[in-house]
């Protein structure tokens, strides 16, 4: 091709260039469609995020309020200690017939005929059965109340609580409602006289497991979680940092360190339930540690958290520029001194951020804890990590399996508490990162 003009006109450098059709319209339609797909994808994600949070909050915010009925309880000696034995045998106070006190108080305040058994039952049903324990505790704490009449704030039964919060559909036929019209009338009466009030639900934060939704709380579970988080931090932070220092600063590049590397990355992605099996087989079955104990839970969660912390710590160590190391080594510091005096402090914010995120993950973990028996029905605060205990997410799991409406409220309330912890931890991590973020 020596003739320029012929090559210009031949095909690819076609003549009327300005007007050639390159399908702009069609292509821009495709562009718009593509953009819309992207936006809708993000919107779908956000939609589900907000639906999820909405589900939890709309179901759960009422859990922080509790209906209480304050009754003047007459601690009659006749009922509690008919034979006046309490000085010699204190156990009579434990087994006394406290529900009678509640019944009498209800009869009095609602003006019911004590002979009408059905009516009396309906009235006493409005008070939580947990009142028995509540009154017992009052008497045990101060036996001198016997013979006196004292105002005691008792928990309302769960259905009364729901009705009082307006969660019961009153248009439903009475027979199919858990609360009948008579009780509704009484409720109005009690509300007007100021006997029935809505109070802040401190029991949600302090109580343990209970078969009665109104008397159950996350306090005991939270303590179990706290024990485990302490164990996780105390073990996984030093071990994780030590392992990262070795791998990042000392380890020769060989097969063995490669193996450790692959191992850690894999462990970070192993299903959590497998760690539960590990805990069951090694810690409980082999080493003979107690089942359901926070110690075992803490150890299992430590093993799960380690990879996260190691990965974060190595990234933080990598981010410290070599010039810092060179400067310290140049002054005659040993390698160990360089790392512990200079590199580690500079990497500390990154390490802490990684630790917080790892611990937050561990806090929400459920499956492995179920396997090591932390699904126990634990009523009392565990005195040590060796005692049977449960954890916040496991408590949520157990409540989620309960059928009663009031437990849905409790479950959501517990989730709000769990999410609040997680938010605080993650915010802490973010602030830490912002505060100490360094650009070299």
């Amino acid at each position, binding site marked *: 091709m020596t003739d320029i003009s012929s090559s210009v006109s031949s095909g690819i450098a076609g003549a009327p260039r300005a007007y050639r059709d390159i399908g702009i319209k069609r*292509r821009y339609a495709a562009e718009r469609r593509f953009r819309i797909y992207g936006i809708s994808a993000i919107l779908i994600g956000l939609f589900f995020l907000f639906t999820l949070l909405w589900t939890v909050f709309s179901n759960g915010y009422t859990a922080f309020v509790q209906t209480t009925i304050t009754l003047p309880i007459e601690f009659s000696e006749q009922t509690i200690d008919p034979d006046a034995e309490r000085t010699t045998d204190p156990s009579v106070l434990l087994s006394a017939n406290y529900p009678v006190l509640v019944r009498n108080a209800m009869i009095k305040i609602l003006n019911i005929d004590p002979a009408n058994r059905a009516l009396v039952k309906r009235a006493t049903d409005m008070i939580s059965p947990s009142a028995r324990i509540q009154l017992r505790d009052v008497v045990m704490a101060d036996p001198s109340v016997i013979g006196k009449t004292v105002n005691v704030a008792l928990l309302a039964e769960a259905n009364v609580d729901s009705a009082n919060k307006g969660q019961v559909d009153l248009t439903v036929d009475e027979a199919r409602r858990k609360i009948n019209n008579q009780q509704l009338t009484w409720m109005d009466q009690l509300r007007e006289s100021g006997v029935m009030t809505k109070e802040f639900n401190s029991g949600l934060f302090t109580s343990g497991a209970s078969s009665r939704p109104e008397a159950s709380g996350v306090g005991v579970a939270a303590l179990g979680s706290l024990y485990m988080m302490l164990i996780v931090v105390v073990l996984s932070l030093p071990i994780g940092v030590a392992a990262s220092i070795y791998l990042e600063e000392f380890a020769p590049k060989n097969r063995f360190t490669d193996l450790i590397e692959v191992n850690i990355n894999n462990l970070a992605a192993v299903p959590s339930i497998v760690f539960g099996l590990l805990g069951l087989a090694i810690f409980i079955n082999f080493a003979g540690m107690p089942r359901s104990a926070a110690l075992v839970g803490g150890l299992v969660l430590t093993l799960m958290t380690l990879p996260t912390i190691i990965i974060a710590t190595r990234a933080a160590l990598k981010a410290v520029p070599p010039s810092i190391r060179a400067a310290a080594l140049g002054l005659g510091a040993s390698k160990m001194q360089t790392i512990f005096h200079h590199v580690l402090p500079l990497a500390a914010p990154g390490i802490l951020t990684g630790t917080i995120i790892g611990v937050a993950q561990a806090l929400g973990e459920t499956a492995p804890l179920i396997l090591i028996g932390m699904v126990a029905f634990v009523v009392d605060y565990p005195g040590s990590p060796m005692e049977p205990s449960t954890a916040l997410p496991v408590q949520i799991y157990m409540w989620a399996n309960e059928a009663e409406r009031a437990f849905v409220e409790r479950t959501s309330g517990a989730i709000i508490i769990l999410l609040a912890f997680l938010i605080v931890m993650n915010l802490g991590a973010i602030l830490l990162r912002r505060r100490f973020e360094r650009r070299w």
Partner: protein
Amino acid sequence: MNMMSEAAVEKALDKKMNDVSFKMIGKDVSVYYGAKRALFDVNLNVRQNTVTALIGPSGCGKSTFLRCLNRMNDTIDSCRVTGKITLDDGDIYDPSIDVVELRARVGMVFQKPNPFPKSIYENVAYGPRIHGLARNKAEMDQIVETSLQRAGLWNEAKDRLQEPGTGLSGGQQQRLCIARAVAVSPEVILMDEPCSALDPIATAKVEELIHELRANFTIVIVTHSMQQAARVSQRTAMFHLGNLVEENDTDKMFTNPDDQRTQDYIMGRFG
């Protein structure tokens, strides 16, 4: 087969250059990156079927100006362009002008060879394919062959069209990128230091190629090397600190520049 006789080319081009026609005209072009101003009211015209070289010390704004010519600066969020640039009398920053259409007419070759991770064939066919320039496989084959020939890569690549473009040597990759730009049959080709990542032999080949492409395309090339500007271009524009210092015939520029700064730069006193 692509070797045209030097004399024939010169003759054909001289004829065109006599009646000077401007392909692109830049008037008072200024560019801001955020608050920082990178170009100051540049007035520069690009002549048809001419190689225009943009030279100057680094950071002088020559690449920035080049990227204005096909609105590649649009891809940088903080970048803002004022002034007017026309292509065949049409304002390329006019809202009615479409970037995609513009870039199909004003192609670009980048500093570092950036073949797509596809086969050689697919690299060249990419442009024609997205613009729908070929009606069938045969036409596409033809376009790919012609483009590779024009880029002087056909003989080396014809037996390995299905191999990945990233497997070629640096110089071959850059010629592949040129072929890729040529395949869209643009009117103007912008080259941003196309030889800076290449060795001297590959550079020589690319320079030879630029020389030949001039017959069909208007070329604007940013270069670091004064020798290269002298070798490949007919017109040269000298930038300094965001200002256009001088624009002139290349011969004149390198022998007897009008501006003191140009002389200093060419003599190697700064830059």
